[in-house]
């Protein structure tokens, strides 16, 4: 039995993306879910499953109550921060494919800028397994995601001769894409490589413009069977392959203790599963949504997923590889660096638009889109395909 092609994304929805939503996270979640259901041509009464992130502040039953969903047959949560994004769709697809539920909504909503900011220093840990893991790092003032990523970025630079400019070209490309996306926070505000280089240090070797913005907002996705999706108003976007994965000696962004720091084995494993389960190769993908919380990990993902060889991502990007007209257009919506940081869920929605052919920065003739979730943590990925 395989999951491939059994389930589809039938609707996508979102709130506006801002720095201060001015309303509760539960309200953002409910608004996004209602928007996605409208897009799918379904009503809350059709929903019998909900999936979100462990990190989300709004429980499934709270969303159920707000939406007036009569009852849930399936509910689950996926852990490990932004690594959960594609995992929510994977869980929903499995529930649909096995008949555990008919219509599952995946949601993520937060006031990540006006409320609890992930970019601020984490100061304490409990003595559970996660707290103990953080305790090898936090006491040294090693307390932010930017710092944790920068540690691997430095080693990557050392191993392959990559430079800050190589990272900067990712930020420039994302902001160029966002500049033509009216929903993007950075709509109409492209940047230059010089501006990237001149932006202040956050954690050397990362400049300010290597870091995604912090955002308020919500995104929801409606997953149902491929069969049912065919009867709904929007062209079905098939879940061709879905995977979650970890690497050896996996930690939460602290993969420093064994092996190669200039690598992201978890997303490598996810990629291998996606290619195997879909029967596709990197050449069969017309555009990719690569989780871009910090620029260096876009380079590492290009390598882990097989779009280029080890240490070659800098050249790939310098040659225009990730531009809209490049070999592999990456994040046509502007990504989390340019559109908004909604923990990767806005990227999945862009993947759906690319397959539908409805993106403001549409890549021609899209048949397959690869989408990844947060890296450096246990992660997940999807291949979305036209029916």
């Amino acid at each position, binding site marked *: 039995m395989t999951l491939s092609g059994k389930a589809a994304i039938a609707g996508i929805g979102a709130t506006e993306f801002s720095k201060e939503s001015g309303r509760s996270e539960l309200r953002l979640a409910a608004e996004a879910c209602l928007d996605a259901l409208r897009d799918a041509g379904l009503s809350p009464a059709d929903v019998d499953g909900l999936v979100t992130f462990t990190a989300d502040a709004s429980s499934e039953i709270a969303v159920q109550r707000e939406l007036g969903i009569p009852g849930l047959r399936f509910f689950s949560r996926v852990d490990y921060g932004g690594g959960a994004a594609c995992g929510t769709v994977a869980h929903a697809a499995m529930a649909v494919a096995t008949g555990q539920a008919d219509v599952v909504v995946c949601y993520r909503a937060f006031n990540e800028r006006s409320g609890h900011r992930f*970019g*601020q*220093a984490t*100061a*304490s*840990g*409990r*003595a*559970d397994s996660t*707290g*103990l*893991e*953080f*305790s*090898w*790092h*936090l*006491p*040294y*003032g*090693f*307390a*932010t995601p930017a*710092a944790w990523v*920068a*540690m*691997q970025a*430095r*080693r990557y630079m*050392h191993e392959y001769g990559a430079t800050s400019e190589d990272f900067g070209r990712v930020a420039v490309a994302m902001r160029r894409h966002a500049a033509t996306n009216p929903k993007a926070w950075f709509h109409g505000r492209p940047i230059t490589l010089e501006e990237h280089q001149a932006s*202040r*240090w*956050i*954690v*050397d*070797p*990362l400049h*300010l413009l290597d870091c995604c913005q912090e955002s308020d907002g919500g995104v929801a996705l409606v997953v149902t069977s491929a069969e049912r999706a065919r009867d709904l108003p929007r062209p079905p976007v098939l879940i061709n392959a879905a995977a979650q994965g970890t690497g050896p*000696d996996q930690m939460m962004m*602290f993969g*420093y*203790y*064994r092996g190669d*720091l200039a690598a992201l084995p978890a997303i490598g494993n996810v990629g291998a599963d996606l290619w195997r389960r879909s029967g596709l190769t990197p050449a069969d993908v017309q555009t990719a949504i690569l989780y871009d919380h910090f620029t260096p990990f876009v380079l590492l993902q290009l390598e882990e997923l097989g779009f280029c060889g080890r240490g070659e991502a800098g050249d790939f990007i310098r040659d225009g590889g990730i531009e809209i007209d490049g070999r592999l257009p990456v994040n046509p919506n502007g990504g989390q660096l340019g559109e908004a940081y909604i923990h990767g869920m806005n990227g999945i929605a862009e993947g759906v638009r690319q397959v539908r052919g409805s993106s403001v920065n549409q890549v021609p003739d899209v048949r397959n889109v690869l989408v990844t979730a947060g890296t450096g943590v246990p992660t997940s990925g999807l291949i979305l395909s036209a029916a």
Partner: protein
Amino acid sequence: MTAAAGESAAGRDAAAGAPESTGAESTGAEGVHDRLTALAARLAEAGERPAPPCADPVNEPMIRNWTQALGDPDPAWHEGGLAPPAMIQVWSMPGLGTAKGGSAADEVLRLLDESGYRGVVATNCEQTYDRYLRHGERLRSTLRFDGIAGPKRTAMGEGYFVTWYQTWYDERDERVAEMLFRVLKFRPRERPGGAGKPGGGGKGAGGKGAGGAYPLRPAVGPDTAFFWDGVKDGELRIQRCADCGALRHPPGPVCPECHSLSREHVVASGRGEVHSYVVHHHPPVPGRTPPYVVAVVELEEGVRIVGNVNGVPPDEVKIGMPVEVAFERMDDELVLPQWVPAGAARQGGDEAAERKAGQGSGHGSGHGAAGEEPVLEIPLTPTFVIATALATRDFTPVHHDTALARAQGTKDIFVNILTTMGLVQRTALATVPGAELERVEVRLGAPAYAGDTLRLFAERAGNGTVRVRGTVSLGDHVTATVRLRRGGGHGGGHGTEAAR
């Protein structure tokens, strides 16, 4: 005077005249430098001038206070009628309520203060004893400004080394002792927003809040407690599977290699190299002063560990750089294993930390002389810190007033330098009984705070010298070279065995 993180870091500074690129901070540096140079030249030219008088003759009651406070049992200081040589500075201390006055460098220190070099740490103290003094002798002393060196880049910040001399004479105007004293006046690294720490002195690049508990505390559980217990004892412990011997860091309850639940640990040598690193600038992190370096250090045992690299400017840290462990006390409870450039925490051949490592269970790496014990091990009770400060007639509040010490940015009251000199003397004479001190050269390091333990190690280095090293949980408090001469010039008490 704060003796802190001084020589180990300051001694390795870059070539003179190469200030770091501090941008606006350096504005007007040329003018300041010229004024300093001119002032230093004028002071040096003035030469030797009288210091405030020595109020009391060399006397047994003050010697008794001193020997009792320092725990010095040597009968020579009483039955022998001699004064401990390391007490030399005590005889000319002005006492409580008297203006301290006349360090011979006051004008230079004031100009540096006014020019933003507000931090101060003592880095060197060298004393030469022409002969031992006897009870009843009257002394006078003089001061002589020597010079300045700088601006130099140091771990504390850009700064100038300022050196002066004090000389003691007997009633026949014959010199009996001379002391060189050197401090680093530095420009404390600025915090973002410009809130530089007033008073500045005595903090490493990491930076901790004055007083209170360090806010970034590790969670400790049954599987990790052995590590944090070890750190408190100055040991870097690495979990080892008791069955298959696999080393593992961070530790956990099960051996991932053979699934044994039986664990033990080894004590790491404390040597490794930087495998990767970052420099944290933003956002603000409680308890830390950016920029600071966090590194993945690969230990020579093969495991990796994360920590701060201290004692070196962030832009000089490189992948592959050899580093060694330096235990940093963060507050009353927490000690963190930290990293400094290899060689920075140790000078000379006497590697007390290595000996310590060599004692570890089953480490067996052969570094250092396993099992060697410190010559002296002194629990630094508040009573010890205060009693020795008063017995050396040093009434500076940072040595007896905890609240005031903390207000000045130090963790607690700490041992004063005159006491450190006395303890170096005690250690050297315990190592070579019957010898006589001729000269002591001391380099000052981490402060010896109340609540800590000072361990003094000694090693005969040939040619009549003894190397003394005093360690606290923060690292080396003092490293000293003591030159000895054949005893007997003073009669009574001391034997005549030559130092070798």
